[in-house]
């Protein structure tokens, strides 16, 4: 058997072993996708369909989950509803079928916008500060560089709740509680450690000779940094930015403890979506679907850099 295998190449697995491996991996992938597919399917079910037993796989799609996600509704008498002018749009119609009328917009959109503002704000700052620091660590002899880098990483080891206690008190003193600025600063601090470690790796890979040649041609150090290093590091900076963005987008513990209204982001908001008589699962699923789509896109864009990102640059391909 081994003779047949080694006839062409020892390192190339045999066809049958490839087939078995492929089958198991594909099976695993399909099983792990079920919860995600279920989130999407639930989001397009009507509330009665979503809680039927046995769980429905075939059903008539409905937009009710998305309607409920974006609106608040009040129950009315059938007589009152009959007296209203004709419904405007699909959501109006669906709501009236349940003997309810739309009372106004829900908090989902403002919470989603908060998530966007805080995630992008903190990502921009973290990448900006991180790029500068990473260049500093990569190119210059910084005294105690290893200790400083370890210190930067160690800030990431603290349990978020342990950090949240003094931050809560500090923000209360400074008036930063429940503000987007407070959250941006906090997420920037958490992300800057990742940004420094990742970007240092990327900048280390750019040959120093490029800058040195530019400086011999009359560039100052700062010009060389801007016109030679930065363009070379674009891929690394973009990948780092996406990692920071994903962290800030997904973060829950700080957001749940330090924001309650104004600056609340989507993760602590989505679990609180309730309908009449309990959790409104289609609406929760709709909110979850909208919330997850950007991350799906980013994951696919990032697939080649993922390994580096999740190990703080410790493992490169």
């Amino acid at each position: 058997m081994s003779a047949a295998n080694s006839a062409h190449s020892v390192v190339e697995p045999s066809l049958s072993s490839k087939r078995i491996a492929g089958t198991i991996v594909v099976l695993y992938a399909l099983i792990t996708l079920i919860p995600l597919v279920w989130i999407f399917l639930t989001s397009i079910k009507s509330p009665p369909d979503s809680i039927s037993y046995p769980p429905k796989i075939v059903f008539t799609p409905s937009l009710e989950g998305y309607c409920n996600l974006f609106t608040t509704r009040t129950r009315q008498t059938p007589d009152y509803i009959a007296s209203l002018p004709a419904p405007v749009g699909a959501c109006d119609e669906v709501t009236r079928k349940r003997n309810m009328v739309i009372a106004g917009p829900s908090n989902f959109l403002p919470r989603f916008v908060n998530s966007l503002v805080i995630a992008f704000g903190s990502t921009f700052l973290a990448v900006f500060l991180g790029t500068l620091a990473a260049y500093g660590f990569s190119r210059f002899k910084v005294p105690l560089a290893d200790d400083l880098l370890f210190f930067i990483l160690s800030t990431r080891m603290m349990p978020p709740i342990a950090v949240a206690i003094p931050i809560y008190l500090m923000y209360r003193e400074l008036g930063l509680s429940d503000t987007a600025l407070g959250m941006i600063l906090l997420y920037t601090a958490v992300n800057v450690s990742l940004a420094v470690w990742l970007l240092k790796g990327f900048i280390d890979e750019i040959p120093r000779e490029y800058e040195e040649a530019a400086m011999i041609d009359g560039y100052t150090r700062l010009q060389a940094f801007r016109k030679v290093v930065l363009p070379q590091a674009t891929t690394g900076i973009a990948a780092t930015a996406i990692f920071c963005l994903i962290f800030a987008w997904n973060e829950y513990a700080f957001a749940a403890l330090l924001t309650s209204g104004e600056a609340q982001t989507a993760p602590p908001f989505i679990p609180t979506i309730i309908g009449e008589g309990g959790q409104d699962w289609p609406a929760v699923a709709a909110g979850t679907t909208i919330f997850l789509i950007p991350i799906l896109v980013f994951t696919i864009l990032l697939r080649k850099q993922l390994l580096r990102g999740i190990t703080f640059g410790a493992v490169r391909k």
Partner: protein
Amino acid sequence: MSHSSIVEKAADATARATPVSVARRVRGLSDRAIAWLFIAPAITLLLAINIFPLLWAVYLSFTNYRANRPNAPVQGVGLGNYQRVLNDPDIWLAMQTTAHFVFWTIVLQTVIGFTLAYLIDRKFRGHAFWTTIILIPMMLSPAVVGNFWRFLYEPQIGLFAYAVSLISGIPTSEIQMLGNVTLAPWAIIIVDTWMWTPYVMLICLAGLRSIPDYIYEAAEVDRASPWRQFWSITVPMALPFIMLAVLFRGIENFKMFDMVTLLTGGGPGSVTEVASITLKRAAFESWATGRASAFAIILFVAVFGLANIYVKALNKVKQR
């Protein structure tokens, strides 16, 4: 106009004639100034948002301060808070719960993750595509997805209970994943494993790919069996990577908060109350800020200490 350009040309000529290091100093900022100018903002931010609060927490841990009574006089209590925390049976129970959770998630994720990586490394057709698909869960928000798992776990209407009862024949009403004292810890372990196995897999895959082909070729020449090759080449050479994955997962799961909060909130009773949840209750529900700070410091020292020991071990493995 022309005058200044002449000066510039002269400066340029001088700069070109002087050695690079001198030229750098002549033009603009010195390297040392730039180094500090570049590094200082990041360090300052970390000092302000991470280190200063940590020091504040250290101070608070020696006092009886309560955050819901900001105007009450603050008294030093010495090591009282630490004594109380370390003698509190509830906290030891939470530490045990955390250890159980960390242990089983690491075991499951390492075994499944390494197996998957090994299979993907057979390089079957389409392996890159399926790898990306498998990676999706780990990129998602543990809170938002964990919250949805509550629905999957519902005994009557949930898909998980339905699937399990379909396979095992146990009636769905008995599959109370979140309400049953024995099942609840496993409900959390399952979600965490679903989410983070891809993480371990990805790192293991890098480990497997780092093993050069010629080692296997040499083993084949020596007629080592595939089993022997696996245990004396594949595993030892991938070990530093596996250990790195275990380190990262261990630290992350030691801090576990969001997923547990949304799935069980620590219940039923306190069987899934991991350390972070106990800490949150002490700090933001009992408002015993001083005692909670002491607990936070103990947790931080524990993670930091364990991580340090582990990194040393990792370096030893790498050197072999």
